[in-house]
């Protein structure tokens, strides 16, 4: 099963972005809107403080001007000034000083600015020329009541302002100027009070920007704040709002003019306290928002982890499944698994192949396939019975062997499929072909039967005749005949056992012993004469090379091969004739051939010639004799020498048996290195 591949981390990242963006936006907007609201409120509060201050200052200064003006307009003061009635003047000045709040001192000057009288009385002052004073120049220039800039009074050192008005007689002549010094104590109290109630620092300056009142601080000297943008703007007649750094600290300031006098007032608060509410809100938003974002991120991280872990697990499972499938498909067996109801849980490639090969129904019902296979097996009755046993008993486990008419053999293993600790889930059938095993098995069985037969046959004669001798005690001629048979059969049995053990020992083995160089020509000469020349029925012809034919090997074994071929040549040409033995060089090998004029070998027997216990005409061993192992043994010996053996023959045309062995043992022709055919022919 294949899953659609989704890069989990990318999806989660997108999701995180979609979640966090609005959250951040919300945080930003809420703090921003809150800041604006707070700012508006602060602005309006400060602006109203400034406005209140401005109107109070205006009223206060107007009252001062009106007072001074009203005293200056007193006819009695004008006449007293004209007549220089000092006591009257002093009384007026005293009354003026006592009449309004904040008047520190009152002075009457001559029209030229010479001090005539002061209250409180200052002995050194009368006669002093004050015409340089701002108030004097202002009042003389305008000809009407004038409010001066701040200046330092000689007495205290604190900045004061003076309101001056001309003193005129009934005819309008100027008799002098009345000036009242105003220390603005009241304004200071006012600023302190406003500062307290409005939580703002209230400040009042004159038209030059000199601070007259500064909330909570005594004004000790003349300091111009003309450079301050708020003051400057107010002095220009504007009112407004500004944020400034003052004394290293951010302040929000509202300013307003005192219009009639072109003074300025300002009200300010340190920005941090003004916007403290914004800060608190922001803190709350952050307090809520940041954990929210963190929780969200943590959640998403966990989700990503879980998703990728799941993907990894899925991939691993997929890989496992692929491995399992590949594995099960790689076995040469046909494997299928069915549920308890017979439906397929699984079929491997081999299973489908067998189902296809035998034309069985292409169904998903394994039980049905197993049952229908009865139609293609050699023994349907037995097969059907065994398959039924598997299908009927869910616990049954075992194997079932059967053949198919095409000559193949099969084995089915079947067992319940049971995950640990559960009832059977179904059943597995594993079908493997056993054709080759069965062939080998049959060959082995045949071999055992043949060997048994070959050994028991002479034994039967020996045992039988010995028993007859013992039981019947026959006459000497009969006894002699029996004993001859026993002796002959015992000899035959001995040869048979020797050859058989010989061949068993040689099969698949390397030749290890008695390796030496020997002259094949001489060996051929010797053995041919011994075997063939001894018979009276056959003529011998020998063809040898001019030089000695030197070969390396076990000369006794090679002699055994040659003798075998020679005796066969004699044996299978019962009518006699010529036996021709030829030794020659052939392509680095020595080739020995033995040709007879005998019975020859039929085409259908040719493949059996080198097999064990084969006799061309074995209908009567009395005629032919031999163990039936000679050629098989010869073949093993020649092979062990790294050579070849073969024959040409036709029925009734005689036979030529030949073998080749290497003349020298080259590096590439080490003895016994040629692969041997291990399938025995029976």
């Amino acid at each position, binding site marked *: 099963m294949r899953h659609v591949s989704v890069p989990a981390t990318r999806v989660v990242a997108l999701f995180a972005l979609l979640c966090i963006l609005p959250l951040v936006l919300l945080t930003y907007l809420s703090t921003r809107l809150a800041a604006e609201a707070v700012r508006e409120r602060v602005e309006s509060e400060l602006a109203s403080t400034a406005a209140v201050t401005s109107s109070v200052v205006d009223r206060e200064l107007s009252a001062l001007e009106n007072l001074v003006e009203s005293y200056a307009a007193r006819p009695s003061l004008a006449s007293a000034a004209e007549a220089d009635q000092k006591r009257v003047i002093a009384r007026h000045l005293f009354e003026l000083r006592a009449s309004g709040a904040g008047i520190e001192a009152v002075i009457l000057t001559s029209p030229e600015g010479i001090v005539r009288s002061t209250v409180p009385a200052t002995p050194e002052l009368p006669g002093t020329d004050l015409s340089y004073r701002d108030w004097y120049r202002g009042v003389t220039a305008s000809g009407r009541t004038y409010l001066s800039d701040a200046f330092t009074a000689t007495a205290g050192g604190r900045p004061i302002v003076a309101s001056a008005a001309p003193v005129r007689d009934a005819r309008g002549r100027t008799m002098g100027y009345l000036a009242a010094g105003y220390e603005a104590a009241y304004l200071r109290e006012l600023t302190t009070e406003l500062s307290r109630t409005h939580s703002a620092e209230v400040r009042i300056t004159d038209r030059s920007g000199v601070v007259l009142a500064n909330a909570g601080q005594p004004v000790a000297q003349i300091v111009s704040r003309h450079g301050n943008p708020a003051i400057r703007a107010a002095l220009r007649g504007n009112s407004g709002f500004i944020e400034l750094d003052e004394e290293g600290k951010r302040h929000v300031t509202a300013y307003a003019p005192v219009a009639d006098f072109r003074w300025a007032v300002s009200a300010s608060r340190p920005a941090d306290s003004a916007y403290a509410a914004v800060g608190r809100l922001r803190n709350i938003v952050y307090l809520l928002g940041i954990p929210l974002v963190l929780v969200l991120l943590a959640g998403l991280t966990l989700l990503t982890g879980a998703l990728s872990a799941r993907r990894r697990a899925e991939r691993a499972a997929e890989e496992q499944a692929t491995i399992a499938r590949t594995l099960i498909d790689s076995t040469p067996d046909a494997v299928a698994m069915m549920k308890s109801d017979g439906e397929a849980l699984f079929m491997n490639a081999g299973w489908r192949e067998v189902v296809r090969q035998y034309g069985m129904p292409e169904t998903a019902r394994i039980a049905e396939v197993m049952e229908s296979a009865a139609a293609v097996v050699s023994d349907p009755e037995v097969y059907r019975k065994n398959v039924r046993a598997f299908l009927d008993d869910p616990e049954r486990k075992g194997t079932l062997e059967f053949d198919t008419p095409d000559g193949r053999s099969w084995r089915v293993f079947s067992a319940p499929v049971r995950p640990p600790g559960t009832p059977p889930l179904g059943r597995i059938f594993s079908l493997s072909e056993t054709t080759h095993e069965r062939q080998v098995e049959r060959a082995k069985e045949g071999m055992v039967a043949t060997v048994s*037969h*070959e050994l028991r046959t*002479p034994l*039967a004669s020996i045992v039988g005749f010995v*028993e007859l001798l013992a039981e019947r005690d026959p006459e000497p001629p009969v006894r002699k005949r029996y004993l001859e048979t026993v002796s002959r059969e015992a000899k035959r049995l001995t040869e048979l056992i020797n050859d058989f053990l010989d061949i068993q020992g040689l099969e698949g083995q390397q030749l290890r012993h008695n390796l030496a160089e020997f002259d094949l020509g001489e060996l051929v000469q010797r053995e041919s004469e011994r075997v063939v020349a001894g018979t009276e029925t056959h003529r011998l012809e020998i063809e040898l090379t001019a030089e000695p034919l030197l070969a390396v090997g076990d000369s006794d074994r090679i002699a055994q091969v040659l003798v075998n071929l020679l005796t066969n040549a004699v044996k299978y040409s019962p009518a006699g004739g010529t036996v021709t033995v030829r030794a020659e060089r052939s392509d680095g090998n020595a080739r020995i051939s033995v040709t007879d004029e005998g019975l020859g070998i039929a085409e259908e027997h040719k493949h059996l010639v080198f097999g064990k216990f084969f006799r061309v005409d074995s209908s009567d*061993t009395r005629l032919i004799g031999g163990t039936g192992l000679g050629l098989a043994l010869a073949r093993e010996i020649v092979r062990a020498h790294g050579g070849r053996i073969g024959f040409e023959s036709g029925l009734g045309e005689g036979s030529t048996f030949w073998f080749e062995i290497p003349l020298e043992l080259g590096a590439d022709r080490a003895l016994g290195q040629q692969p041997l055919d291990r399938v025995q022919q029976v």
Partner: protein
Amino acid sequence: MRPKILICDNEAPLRDLVRATLGDELYDIVEARSGTEALDLAVREGPDLILLDVMMPGKSGLDVLRELRSDDALRRTPVIMLTARAYASDRAAAEQAGANRFLPKPFSPLELLAAVEQLVAAR
């Protein structure tokens, strides 16, 4: 008249042994060297008993036995199987094919003689 015994074995010493055991003076012994020869002789000679070797080149003793049993004239002729194969399954196969006795090689000549006498007498 002596009972006629047909012995079929490709091994000459075995035929000799049977002949020596039964005795020419008591039985008329006919020898066959192969299954085919045995069937021919059986039809021609109509023996009173047949001794069959199982393992022979060409037609095996069991093949011969099956053919004998499917021949109306020879169906009832007693047959003793002589065989070097002595497994129970071989004996079962021989009995199923209709053999009267089964003697594994090597056998005791006296046992063979007893079996022959018994079967011939029963006819």
